């Protein structure tokens, strides 16, 4: 119980073994459920608005979801190793703030971006060191850096709003890739998702991530350097969140210190809704990609119905709750049934004896 997530209630052994039966099949089922939800959303969306199925919506949905989706990928890997990073949105804001501050101080936009990425690297390394060296629970550490990163962003940039980035760059927020309806951030996300999928599902590194999440000790006894692995995942998360911050800044063609405040919740929700287990070990890139698409479409539908953004929160929160309660609820049900079976068995035995 040292680096363990303190807020996680461990599954009882019998429930855990029941879940172990067929992780693959359970995953497939979750993903097919996501496909069904997606279809339902599409039908609902086109029924309520004639504009919903237009191709330009692909662009807008991609634009809306891009940064969140990019941040979801490293977070997915971190959660699979049974840790968590709640500082993602603050790092995104900090990166944007650094970019804005340096740019307004006369730096070239490219150099400013480079520094922003370095800041992401440093922030991720800070998280990683605190978690792996000091063995602090990642939830406490990243709640702390959530405040810290945002605070530094505030120091660096507030109360200014920086604009005037080169049009050639800010165009990524207004113009799709030539000849398509795909936003640049969508393309970047897809490329990163493919890389993440290959790494997670087809390389030794991916196997190490999964094994670490299920059984860190067994991973260590198999020669996996668990601490080093977690450290670099936190660094990766820092860098990609900083990258998302750059995209976000360019997309909006302006930046203030509070960009993306609260987005960590969306990112966590998307990862868990994608079927990644909060207890670690289980999750697939396809699930997370589907989750991104579903949430993006859902938000688009709600926006077209003029539902206020705060109210859309209910949907996000609901999805989050559903995605943790359903798997656990199944377990609870199984436990109860198993207990009933056991007690009926023992009464039978008594009756026979």
């Amino acid at each position, binding site marked *: *119980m040292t680096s363990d*997530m*303190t*807020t*996680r*209630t461990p*599954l009882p052994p019998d429930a855990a073994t029941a879940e172990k039966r067929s992780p693959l099949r359970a995953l497939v089922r979750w993903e097919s459920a996501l496909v069904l939800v997606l279809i339902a959303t599409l039908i609902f969306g086109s029924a309520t608005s004639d504009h919903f199925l237009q191709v330009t919506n692909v662009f807008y949905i991609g634009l809306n979801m891009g940064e969140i989706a990019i941040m979801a990928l490293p977070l997915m890997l971190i959660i699979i190793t049974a840790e*968590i990073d709640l500082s993602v949105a603050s790092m995104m804001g900090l990166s944007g703030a650094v970019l804005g501050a340096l740019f307004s101080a006369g730096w070239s936009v490219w150099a400013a971006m480079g520094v922003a990425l370095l800041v992401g690297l440093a922030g991720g390394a800070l998280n990683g060191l*605190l978690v792996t060296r*000091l*063995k*602090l*629970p990642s*939830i*406490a*550490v990243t*709640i*702390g*850096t*959530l*405040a*810290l*990163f*945002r*605070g*530094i962003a*505030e*120091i660096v940039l*507030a*109360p200014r709003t920086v604009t005037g980035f080169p049009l050639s760059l800010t165009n990524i927020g207004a113009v799709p890739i030539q000849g398509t309806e795909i936003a640049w951030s969508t393309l970047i996300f897809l490329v990163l998702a493919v890389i993440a999928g290959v790494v997670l599902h087809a390389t030794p590194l991916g196997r190490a991530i999964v094994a670490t999440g299920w059984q860190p000790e067994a991973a260590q006894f198999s020669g996996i350097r668990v601490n080093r692995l977690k450290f670099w995942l936190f660094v990766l998360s820092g860098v990609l969140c900083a990258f998302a911050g750059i995209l976000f800044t360019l997309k909006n063609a302006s930046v203030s*210190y509070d960009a993306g*405040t609260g987005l960590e*919740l969306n990112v*966590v*929700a998307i990862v*868990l809704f994608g079927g990644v287990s*909060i207890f670690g070990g289980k999750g697939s890139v396809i699930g997370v990609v589907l989750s991104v698409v579903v949430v993006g479409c859902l938000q688009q539908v709600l926006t077209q119905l003029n539902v*206020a*953004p*705060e*109210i*859309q*929160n*209910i*949907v*996000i*929160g*609901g999805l*989050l*709750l559903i995605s*943790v*309660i359903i798997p*656990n*609820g199944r*377990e*609870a049900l199984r436990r109860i049934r198993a207990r009933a079976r056991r007690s009926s068995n023992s009464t039978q035995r008594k009756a026979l004896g």
Partner: protein
Amino acid sequence: MTTVTAPRFARTGSLLRVRELGIGVAILVVFGITTFTNPAFASANSVQQLLTGAALIALLGVGETMVVVTRNVDLSVGSVVGFSAYLVGDLFAHHPGLPVPLGFLIGIAIGAAIGAINGIVTTVSRVPSLVVTLAMLYIVRGIDGMVVNGHTIDPDKIPTALTAVGYRTLVGIPWLAVIVALVVVVAGYAMRSFRASRDLYAIGSNPEAATLAGIPAGRRVFTAFTLSGALAGLAGVLFLALHAQIDVTGGTGYELTVISAVVVGGVAIFGGSGTVLGAALGALLLNTINQALVAARISAFWDEAIAGALLLATIAFDRWLSLRMARSLRSAEGAHRDV
């Protein structure tokens, strides 16, 4: 050395008191230094601001402490504050004759109901409370948005008897601080003095041992969440009293400040130890630092970074302390064995 095991470490009580004393000293140091450079900081007005500004976070810290000692966390408190404040404000706006105490009760009831949902979902489905209360943060804020629907409740709609709580003082102490201090004292006493509240500490200290000892962990955790919700509901009404107006953003982001205050105040994030007094003092320390920055003309933009750094420093320090303690123990045992 025949049969004696000399207490190698301070007793629990004094250990905790040491922590609270430490925060008290830290508050005084910050206060002293700032007063030295800017004497106005010690004016009655300024001190009143210190207390008022810390009051809501301290109050929320009391509830959060109850939850955190059981190895759980409640992230929904900020949303509950906003929701309770708006509903009660709306009630006063539509029913001008409504007695103020009834408003308090309704606010508390709303909070308790949300807390109860947190508690049920966490204990029955065994979902980590981090996720449950994160979802509730969203959902409550969303429902709040639906109810508020872009409106703001104006100061003139809120009974003066209520807003008076926000600015009147009792022998120089803001009423808000008096109320919160009362809650802290009562809750602090209760957390020491009842079997059920000691169970909370036991659950967080060693969950398996708690089960073996026959402690009804589920019921206790449920109660802790309900109380945390109820106190957040109360904080909502006080928020209304303090600001005399409310829109959809009320209480946003409070959860992080509260957790920082609680952890800085010595409540172990791994559960099992910490006091509500410590949490309240933690809130006061955070606010004192914030105000000191303002007084020292350092931009208020430093607030959040300092809160975050303080939180990180505290958990790192606590870990270092426990590691050192474990090491000194081990070497002490080793020395024994060598004899």
